[in-house]
Each structure stands twice: as C-alpha cells, then as structure tokens.
C-alpha cells in the first residue's frame, strides 16, 4: 500500500520537474506548460492529504473543493495567459524568451 509520504514525494518531484522547465526552456508556451505542471503537483499533495485526514469515515472534502477551485482558476489563467501570448506574438513576432527584454535597464 502506498503511504502518504509516497504521494508527497511524487508531488515534490513533479513540482521540481515543472520548476526546472520554467527555468530551462526558452519557448514561452512551453514555460507556460511547465507552470501547469507545478500547479498540478500542488493539487496532488492536496488530494493526498484529503484522503489522509478522514472525517467520520469519509475523506476531508474541503481539500477536494480547494483542488476544484485550483483547477478552475488555472484554466482561467491559461485562457488569459495564452491571450496575452498571442497579443505579444502579434507585437513582437517571437515567443523566444530572450527577445522579451524591454524592461532591461
């Protein structure tokens, strides 16, 4: 049987993979996808704790509601973020992150 710690380890590794993707990839869209990986890692650990802290024979549904909200918010964020990327592509004709340095001193 898998224990909570195993799920937590899995969640941590997934988060790390997402973070590495944010830091290492040069394409803006792929960075965005790695961001989604990080969100999902958090979701996984939340669901794990929900199952772990049972109340009256049932899992703790508060955490599951939170996960529901996180998924919803992530979806909205992806929508807006991709719209921004589209506008940016129209302006700059590139999604390469090193070309986006207007705020450099």
């Amino acid at each position, binding site marked *: 049987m898998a224990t909570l710690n195993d799920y937590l380890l899995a969640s941590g590794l997934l988060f790390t993979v997402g973070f590495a993707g944010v830091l290492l990839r040069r394409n803006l869209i792929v960075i965005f996808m790695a961001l989604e990986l990080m969100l999902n890692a958090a979701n996984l650990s939340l669901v794990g704790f929900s199952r772990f802290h049972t109340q009256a024979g049932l899992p703790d549904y508060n955490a599951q509601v939170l996960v529901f909200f996180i998924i919803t918010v992530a979806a909205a964020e992806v929508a807006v973020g991709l719209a921004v990327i589209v506008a940016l592509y129209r302006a700059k004709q590139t999604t390469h*992150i090193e070309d*986006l*340095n207007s705020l*450099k*001193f």
Partner: protein
Amino acid sequence: MNSAPWIILFSPLVAAALIAVATQPFKKLSSYLSVAAVAISFLFSLTLFGGPDQDGSFNWIDLGVFQVRLGYLIDGFSKMMLLVVTGVGFLIHVYSIGYMHDDRGRSRYFAGLSLFMFSMLGIVLANNFIMMFIFWELVGVSSYILIGHWFDRPSAADAANKALIVNRIGDFGFMLGILMVWSASGTVMFGELSSKWSTLGLGATYATIAALMIFCGAVGKSAQFPLHVWLPDAMEGPTPVSALIHAATMVAAGVYMLARVYFLFAGSAAALTVVLWIGLITSLLAALMATQQSDIKRVLAYSTLSQLGLMVSAIGLGVPVSALFHLFTHAFFKALLFLGAGSVIHSLHNEQNMWQMGGLRRKMPLTFWTFLIGTLALSGCPPLAGFWSKDGIVAAAFAHNGFAGLVISVINFFTAFYMMRLFVVSFLGTARSEAADHAHESPPVMTVPLVLLAIPSLIAGFPPIEHIFFPNAGAEEPSIGAIAVSLAVFIGGIAAGFVLYRGKTSDPVSVPLFANRFYIDQFYSVLVKWTQDALARVAAFIDRWVIDGGIVRGLGGTTWGFGFALRFLQIGNLQAYAFLFGFGVVLLLYLILFAT
C-alpha cells in the same frame, strides 16, 4: 500684608499703561498722569518711612518645586531709597513738563518715565533675587526706551542699543551668580539668605565666585570698568532722563543691590578686594577722562561714573552704609547738576558744548547759584553734603590700606578740578556765542525743582539728618588726618581749576589719551568685529561643507548610488527572475522551518 508698598509699586505702572493705551494723543493729560502717579508713590513712601520694618510676599508663580515670589522688604535701606527715588523722581517729572514742552513724543516719554519708576521701585522693594532680577531687566528696558527717545537720530538709537547690550553682558553674570547662590542654599529670599549664607560651609572658591558673579550685575548696571562704555553714550537721551536714570537712581541700583546682599561678600576677602579695585580703577579712569571733555553732559556723565566707582570701592572696603550714604547725597546733587545743565541747554537752544557758553551769571541767576551749590557739594566742600559722605569713604580707605586712601585722594582732587573747570567755562566770563548772548532764565516749572534739590545738597550731610535716614550707622570717630587730606585736596583742586580755566576761550590743556577715553571703545569694536568674523567664518564653513556638502549632497548622492547599483538587477530575463524568486522562497522556508 500691608498694601502701601503695592500702591507705591503699581501706581506708576497704572499710569504707564493708561498712557500707552488711552491717552497718547493727549500730551498734557499724559504728563499730569505720570506726575500724579509719582506723587502718590512719594506720599506713601513718606508714610512707610515713619513705620516699622516689615516684610511680606505672595506667590506669583507656583509650580510646586519652583516658586517665584513677589514681595517687599521694608527696612532702613529700602525706606531711605524709596524716599530718594520717589522724591527725586517727582521733582524730575515736574521739571520734564517744562523741558519737554515742545517735544512731539511727550506722551511716549512720560509713559517711559512711569515704566522706569515702576521698575526701579521694584528693585528697591524686592525681597528676593528673582524678583530683583525681573525688575533689573525691566529697568534696562526702560533705560533703552528713554535713551532712544529721539530714535530718528542714529546716534541715539545706537546709544540705546549699546546700553542694552552692555547691560545684558553684566546681567548674564548676575544670573549665573543667582543660580550659584540658589543652588548652594536652596532659597533666594534675602532674609533667609542673610542668616543662612555664612552657615552653609561652602568652599572659599565657590563663595568668592558666586559673589563675583553677582557683582557682575552691578558692574553692568552701575557702569563699572570694563562695562562702563554705555554710560557716556547714554547722554543722547533727554537731560531729565540723564538726571533721573543715569545719575540718581538706576545706576545706583547696582550699589544698592551690593549693599543689600553684602552678606555674600562679607566672608570672602578676595571678592571684596576685586570689588574695591574695580571701583577704584573705574573712578580714577573716569575722573581723568572727565578733565578733557567739552560736552557739559559728558563731563557730568564721567563724574557720575567716578562717584559710582567710589561707592563700589566703599563696598569693597567693607563699609556698605557709607556707600549708601554717598549714594543718598550723590542722588541729590547729581540730579541738581544735570537739571541745571538741562536748564542751560534748554535756554541756549540745545547747545551742549561748554566752550560755546559763558557769561550766564546775570542772565540765569537761579540756575547759576544752584549749579554752584551742586558743584561745591560734589567737590566735597564742607559743610555741604558731599563732604560728609566722602569723608566716610576716605576714612575707611585710610584705615584699610594707605595706597587706596592715596588713590581716593587723587580722585577727589581731580573731581574738584574738573567740576571747577566745568563751572568756570560754562557760567563765568563773557558769552562766547550768539546763543549764550541771548540766554534767559528758565520757566519756574524748571527752576523750582532746582531750588528744591539745592536744599538737600546743602544740608543732607549733617550728622543729625544722616541719622534720620541711616539709624544704624555707627558713630565713628572722625579721623582728623582724613579730614585734613580731604580739605587740602578740595582746595587744591578748586584753585587749580579756577586758575587754569579763568577767562580762556579754548582748552589750554590737551591730553589725547583722556580725551579719547583711553581708546577703550575702539578696542571693544575691534574685539567685536574680530569675534563676529571668526564666528561667521565657522558658520560659513559648516554651511558649505557639512550641511550642504555632507548632508544634502551626501544623502542625495547615496540614494543615487544605491539606485545605480540596484539597476543592475533589472536584467530583463524572465527566467532569471523566476530563479531568484524560487531561490528566495527556498531560503525563506529554510529560515522559518529550520533556523528558528
């Protein structure tokens, strides 16, 4: 608590307030108000004179740990002084009605005179140091107002400033002295202090320094060397002001204060020596300077300086009663001399140079004879008042220290000399100018006070009269030697003055050192300029380098520098930001979870 002292004190203040607030356009009414106030004070002083010694006070400021009491101390000294101040003051107020008849600022003048009377009476009545200091400063202010009465004259305005500033220097020392006395004994009331001071067991240095600091106040107010420079310039004020303030009363306040707190000096021989020698130096310098002056009021001013020096040296010799007795007689004949000079000046249409006068014997007889009485009294002619009061000082001097006696005798010689010089040149001979030719006697409102002042100049020195005013004076054996020396000196001085100046039209003797007042004024002005320049240079340096360069530009530069350094963090690379962000979060987590 008796109300008479309060009426004496506050009636001139009421007059001054009324004039300032209500009656300024009505010049005659203002003058009568002022005279009436002084008359009231004089009458009440008479009633107090016959009464017993008393003491009363009330709390004016009460903050628990700190109290300022206003009160009165009626004893032999203050009874005598009240009569002198209010009596001579009354006569001078009456005289002023005549002298200031054409002046446009009459109301202001009388308000100033009343304010002065209020302040001076405050000093006389005061029963504690704080009250005395308050009124001390008020007297300084009144003197400033009155010296600068004709303020559109630059010399008058400068003289008023000079008087106030030099007085302030003395008052600073006075304040320090009061603080030293207060902190050592815990009280400022004269009565308590006089009994407590000798029992306090203070170190000799502390007691001497405290006494000398208090003496600083007298040095400033009574124009002793080195703070004497303001008194001759104070003659820019109207002559009655010179008579009242700078001859009879205000400058005497210093001597009065010293006599009041003589117990502070009694235990310290060093302080008394300093007081004695400053008095003698002042007196000698002033007498020498007076022999070369041409302005009639300046001669009298230096004469006042000289006599004040004598009074102060009497304090230093340990005979405060003699000092006060001389103050008493001096008030009368000095006021008489000033008012007489004023009469001459008024009648000669504001001519003050004595070489432009002359031949006034037939034209102004009353002024002539009263001025002669004043001159003789000042020179120490027996049996006039000055002879008796100076004799006390001379005798004490010879008893104490032969050299001091010699110096005082030399001073008395010169006193007689320059007074005779003044009298001969101003009144005798032929008229040396148009104005002197057309002189006429002054109106009665001016001559009656002259006569009234001549009477005490004649008789106030006699021992029975002395005893009315100074009941505590011991009956000393008159020293024949002292009297002989005084007489010789008097006759010699009078003769020298008469012979040297009879019939001359210009000064036969010329001593530039005396005429230029020993160059002390020039020395002070150089000193002040040097100090100011040094201070200005320091201030400029601080302003330019420390404040402007260091603080203002420094702060600005530091901020700019920080901004410049931090700019390099904005590299525009999103992933670098993300990395730093993650790194920061890890660090925070570590610190929170594991380090605390």
